């Protein structure tokens, strides 16, 4: 039984703080995006010029499509691996318990350090990855400077660091499945696969959704790995949108008007994706 009454005072500090610290910069960004502003020279009013420049820029479209591709592929790969591993380690054994603790480690290392580590590991000239490939007689690609390989490298780094996040969530989901339901299915003669598909999966879907949503949102923001591993190389081939905003707005020459326009577009884009995912989920749930 909840209390009736006015909790406004309680909620006020949080709401005010959030509004001030997120809303005002965003409003300011909308304002700035109407100017052509090469900081620290004075800004020049330019109306919608920044947006037209944005939408006619090849880099904008390539960064955006890179980001969509990146999010989709990485998410699918990570979810598959995470589900498989979660199923593998759900029984209680010493090895599994140890693994569950070990899984925490990659998530908690600062992403900067992880990127640096893999920048070393993937170094085509003196890095261990190519060293081992050489020992195995396999070709040693230029991991960070050549196109398909650079994406593989970025994806591998993200998998290494963040799949544990999904694994732990799926584990929690698996544990939430009441064992009697599973046993009942077994008694009815269901195979392992059917057991999973018709009993377990629908029950863990809501949790997978939450994990997935968080993962997609974080993938959209990926920045450290691009900046430190490939720096957008080769060419601008591995530019993700976050790097696009940073590079255009704050690196070298500060075109803050253009950068602000790019930021606003990104906000809308992210919002659209989140809303789509949520709607998709509810549609899926309604069907089940």
């Amino acid at each position: 039984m909840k209390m009736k009454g006015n909790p406004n005072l309680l909620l006020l500090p949080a709401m005010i703080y959030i509004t001030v610290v997120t809303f005002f910069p965003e409003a300011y960004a909308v304002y700035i995006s109407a100017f052509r502003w090469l900081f620290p020279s004075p800004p020049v009013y330019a109306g919608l010029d920044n947006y037209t420049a944005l939408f006619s820029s090849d880099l904008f479209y390539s960064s955006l499509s890179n980001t969509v591709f990146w999010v989709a592929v990485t998410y699918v790969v990570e979810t598959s691996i995470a589900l498989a591993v979660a199923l593998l380690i759900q029984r209680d054994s010493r090895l599994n318990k140890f693994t569950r603790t070990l899984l925490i480690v990659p998530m908690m290392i600062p992403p900067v350090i992880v990127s640096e580590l893999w920048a070393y590991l993937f170094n085509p000239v003196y890095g261990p990855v190519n060293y081992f490939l050489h020992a195995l007689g396999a070709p040693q690609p230029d991991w960070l400077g050549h196109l398909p390989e650079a994406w593989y490298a970025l994806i591998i780094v993200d998998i290494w660091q963040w799949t544990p996040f999904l694994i732990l969530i799926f584990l929690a989901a698996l544990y939430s499945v009441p064992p009697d339901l599973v046993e009942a299915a077994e008694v009815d003669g269901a195979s392992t696969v059917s057991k999973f598909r018709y009993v377990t999966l629908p029950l863990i879907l809501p949790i997978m959704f939450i994990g997935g949503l968080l993962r997609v949102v974080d993938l959209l923001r990926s920045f450290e790995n691009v900046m430190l591993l490939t720096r957008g190389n080769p060419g601008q081939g591995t530019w993700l949108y976050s790097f696009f905003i940073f590079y255009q707005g704050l690196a070298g020459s500060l075109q803050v008007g253009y950068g602000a326009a790019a930021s606003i577009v990104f906000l809308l884009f992210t919002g659209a994706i989140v809303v789509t995912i949520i709607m998709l989920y509810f549609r899926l749930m309604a069907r089940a």
Partner: protein
Amino acid sequence: MSQDKNVGRREWLKLTGGVVGGLIVGGALGYLAKPPVEVPGPTTTVTATGGPVTVTATATATATPTEVVDFYVNPQLAGTELNIMAYDTIDTVQAKKFIDEFQRITGIKPIWTVMGEGTANDKLSLEFAAKSGTFALDYNSMDGSFVYNNAIAGNCLPLNDWFAKCPKEYNFDDVLKPTVKSSSTDDGTIYGSLWDCGNHWLAYRKDLFEAENVKVPTNLDELVAAAEHFYRPDKGLWGITLFGTPDLFPFFQWDMFIWGCGGKHLDEATMEPLANSPEVIEGTDYYAKLGKYAVDWSNSEINKPTTYFAAGKAAMELNFVTALAPVLDPTTSVVFDKTGFAPWPGKVAQPNILTATGYSVNAYSKPKEQEAAFSLLTFLTSPHVQSQALKPEFGWPPMRASVVEAPENQPDVNTKWGWMAPTIKAIIAAQPPGTKGAKSVAASPLPRLPKPGVSFGYMKIIYTNFAKIVAGTWTAEQAMNQSQKDLVDLFKTEGLLK
């Protein structure tokens, strides 16, 4: 049940509280733990007469030094903390070797913040945009053109008055004019000083070239041929090592290629960019051709080429004179005894001397710090410090005519720093006889444009489009045509072109 819960929670609380507390204590201890008090190093006894200087180092820490002070000193600055932003190049390493002496004479405490060049350049633009005077002495890398660009943006302090107040022993006339010009604006206001001046050279593996009877390249076609000859990545050897990241470094190498083919950044009279002129495209094309034989091309930034060469991975390296220095250090290089040097093999003879690393005083710092910064600036460019330039234990191209002309410093390829001989020769050759370097023109790596920020914009357009060449998606011609379009657009927006 609740009892267990409570005990469980209490233990959690204790454990976590202990950990957090431990972290805080640990952090505090770590912060307070200072290294043992520094014992002053060997003192140097210096007598400066504006000419060659003899230095004797004594090992005792208590000997009283006798010095002629040939740089700007203000006794009231004793105790001031001076924040220096420096890039982690060999120049900083060399400069730091003199710091104890500076600190002892002036009482100023220098605090170096040394950063990698890539991030530092990002930082520098943010720093100046923020008008924060955190670092009173800024190392405006690359050279005077950075100083110039920051000067017209108002980020650097004009130094003419202070230079006038220097003791006569400082001998301002002795400073090579190109270095002064590059860090001044056209009206003669000086905004900084260069620590050294140098050029790009070619380093090559003597052992490999001799063993396979390959001629040392003297022009760009020979250069490409040699790089192709030595390109054996499966055996761990690449032809050459070059800059190739999507940041500013390739831009400075690009400069050499376009100048080497007779091109230039823009037509100064009409302010029109010349990115798609035939000479510039030709130069860019040579750079693109060489890149195919370069080790880790797309990720090589400022001194990575040197580390690869020093690790024996490449047969050649094109780089700044000072960036090549670590190749000769036995502790960091495995090819220190196998390296030869040759002039940059351009089509056109190397006309200009590219000046390098410089310091400027931050216009937004507190006056006391600014003065302290100026003091250090004059110390590092003083006759007695610069006269050490070509001694075996140091090594940088000096920026004073007296040092360049001193008989014992005449180019001798047998000394450890003999590889600088070509640079010294070029510097001397650029001076009309009898004068002190007044005539030589220091080519500016960044075009000197009247509006601050546009030069950096120019650079950014070139290196962003150049990155596509590195990636193999564009030819040199395509990249330069696109650059021309972008540059004209930029110039028009900023009012430099109609």
